[in-house]
């Protein structure tokens, strides 16, 4: 184990703890960027929703609430499995760690499946702007703006989620297989965990914005 630790220590750091904490700070710095990126999108969305409340409420009725809700539950659970995986890494329980990380990946895939099905339903409902869009009765042209936001926001979120799944797979198939994740130094997994939970956070904000509009 000391050998592997020495190999992982980069020359600009005093020790592994220094390196690990700096890596954690780095991912949080990256999240500043992600927060503002999605925040700008959400701002634009709410701006138009304030401008056209009636059209947005009408258009949003066609969102598939059960898909959004199931996906929220899936993501929250995946955050739990990810954390349990990191805990197992901290305690040196390799098998448990792998199992929890595989569960996290599986939940990520499940999210994509539900999302894919939802996109299929959306296409059937004819709410794909510029491709297959028909305004509902009583809905003005601004309704299409709601759907542009829907596709951009959920599309960007899906890309981030797939990146997260990719990172977990990279951890599983590369770092963990080479024995580079040990109780002495498991920061790369923690960094991936922070990113993963952030993808969850984005959905926590997107869900009420998209799915809970105009339901009453």
């Amino acid at each position, binding site marked *: 184990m000391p050998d592997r630790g020495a190999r992982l220590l*980069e*020359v*600009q*750091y005093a020790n592994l703890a*220094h390196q690990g*904490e*700096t*890596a954690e*700070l*780095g991912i949080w*710095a*990256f999240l*500043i*960027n*992600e*927060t*503002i*990126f999605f*925040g*700008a*999108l959400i701002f*634009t969305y709410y*701006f*138009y929703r304030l*401008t*056209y409340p009636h059209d947005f409420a009408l258009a949003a009725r066609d969102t598939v609430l059960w898909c959004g809700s199931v996906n929220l539950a899936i993501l929250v659970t995946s955050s739990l499995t990810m954390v349990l995986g990191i805990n197992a890494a901290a305690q040196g329980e390799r098998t448990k760690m792998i199992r929890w990380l595989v569960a996290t990946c599986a939940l990520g895939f499940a999210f994509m499946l539900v999302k894919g099905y939802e996109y299929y339903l959306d296409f059937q409902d004819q709410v794909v*702007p*510029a*491709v297959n869009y028909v305004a509902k009765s009583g809905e*003005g*042209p*601004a309704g*299409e*703006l709601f759907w*542009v936001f829907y596709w*951009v926001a959920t599309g960007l979120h899906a890309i981030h989620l797939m990146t997260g799944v990719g990172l977990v797979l990279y951890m599983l198939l590369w770092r963990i297989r080479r024995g580079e994740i040990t109780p002495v130094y498991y920061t790369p997994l923690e960094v991936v965990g922070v990113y993963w939970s952030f993808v969850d956070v984005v959905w926590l904000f997107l869900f009420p914005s998209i799915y809970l509009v105009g339901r009453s």
Partner: protein
Amino acid sequence: MSVTTVERAAPRETPSPEPSYLTAEHTVGSWLLTRDHKRIALLFFASITFFFFVGGIAATLMRLNLATPQGLLQPSVYNRMFTMHGIIMVWFFLIPSIPTTFGNFFIPLMIGARDLAFPRVNLGSWYVFNLSGLVVLYSLVMGGADTGWTFYTPLSASYANGYVFAAAMAVFINGFSSIMTSLNFIVTIHRLRAPGMTWLRLPLFVWGIYAVSVVMLTATPVLAMDTLLLAVERFIGVGLFDPTRGGDPILWQHMFWFYSHPAVYIMILPAMGVVSEIIPCYARRPIFGYVGMVLALMAIAILSFFVWAHHMFVAGISIYAGVFFSLTTFFVAVPSAIKVFNWTVSLHKGSIVFDAPMLYSLGFVLLFTVGGVTGLMLATLAIDVGVHGTYFVIAHFHYIMVGATVSAYFAALHYWWPKITGRLYPESWARFAAILTYVGFNLTFFPQFILGYLGMPRRSYTYPVEWQSWNVLSSAGASILAVAYALPLLYLGWSLIWGRKAGPNPWGATGLEWTTPSPPPDHNFSSTPTVVHEPYLYDPEKATFVSQEGTRHAG
């Protein structure tokens, strides 16, 4: 803490067998896959110099066109020229210029670290930059965009003929390069400072890079979202910012300028940091008001986020918003002015050496002052209504971006040239180039203030014939400026082969970077230095200086 006068022989870096970062490895792969911040700095230097020439060619064609009212280029071609000039100069030269070259090279050296916090992210940033460069070159080669570098909707999204989508995507990708670089600097400066290097002992260049990194990290994502939405609108044909379909073009401008105003401060903050290094060294005096300079840098960084709608005074925003943003713009000028006062006072009772870095820095202070004062004029609502969209604005921002920032870039290039390359440049040629730059710059851009006042609109391929004499002066100045910018290429290139070899500290400067050999070895320091002093401990009367790790030297 008292200044300990440790009298010992100047630390002679014993001619160690350790090779420099330039000669440590020789393969192409060792350069393209390097993790060494110094090599990455040189990689960036190559990329941005290339784009400086591309943007410069566009400027040359523009000034040739404007020498006569009949012009040289077709109007639609002229429109693409000024658009691509703006896009390339802003995102592919000015914004990366000082941070990715001198920032990358010197931040670890100045804080006593062996590399940045995340070396692979640093290399990744260069590759992302080049990817965005390929996309913008594609856009350029295919004919370019013609919307102006500001991409206003709905022209850009719905009506423009040209490669707007590619140009917007190039800017989007470029933003991630900025974000990766800035994130690296912020974390490095927080976490990798050597023992004894407290925040208030950091050289002002480090503070300048820290401030610019905060701005880059927080402003760029808004531009990323704005250009992404623009690209979506253009590509798919929905009406996000199209008024005929319910969209709001002013909202696009708000988000664009939320980034682009801080962006202009991204372009000036590192330049201010450079000048704060050079003036103390060449006046042989400490900087006046170090803490005030730090506070001013951070104040500029934060306040820059509160002023953006001064670009939109005549766009249709509410008059009360106009008043608010005019007021905040006046406020942001205050810390900049404090810095100008401090640089000036730092010269008092100094023992000034008029070498090229100092000449460029003095030029910076003067040109920045002119640009800043004319910026205050533009912040005044009543004046702006008259000169918005005229050459007055163009002259104002070129005084800052070219007069100030590019001068500081050349100042940095000359100041740190011996450290980076291990060679001294020929001083007389450099002094000549610096003075020629100043003359050429003023001749190019001062007439533009007058043209703007007279009413000449910007982004126009032609003009009434009575303004020709001012335009001819400006174009003549541009040709002098071109020579002044080309000269350093020649004599700096010459020095690489025939220049005198430089010692570790040819200028007698106090920073940690000057305690290493020239050029530095691979990992900067064989052992982490301990810092005992604040920077700029130059004593003009005793003609000595104390470097930050504690040794007193003559000079």
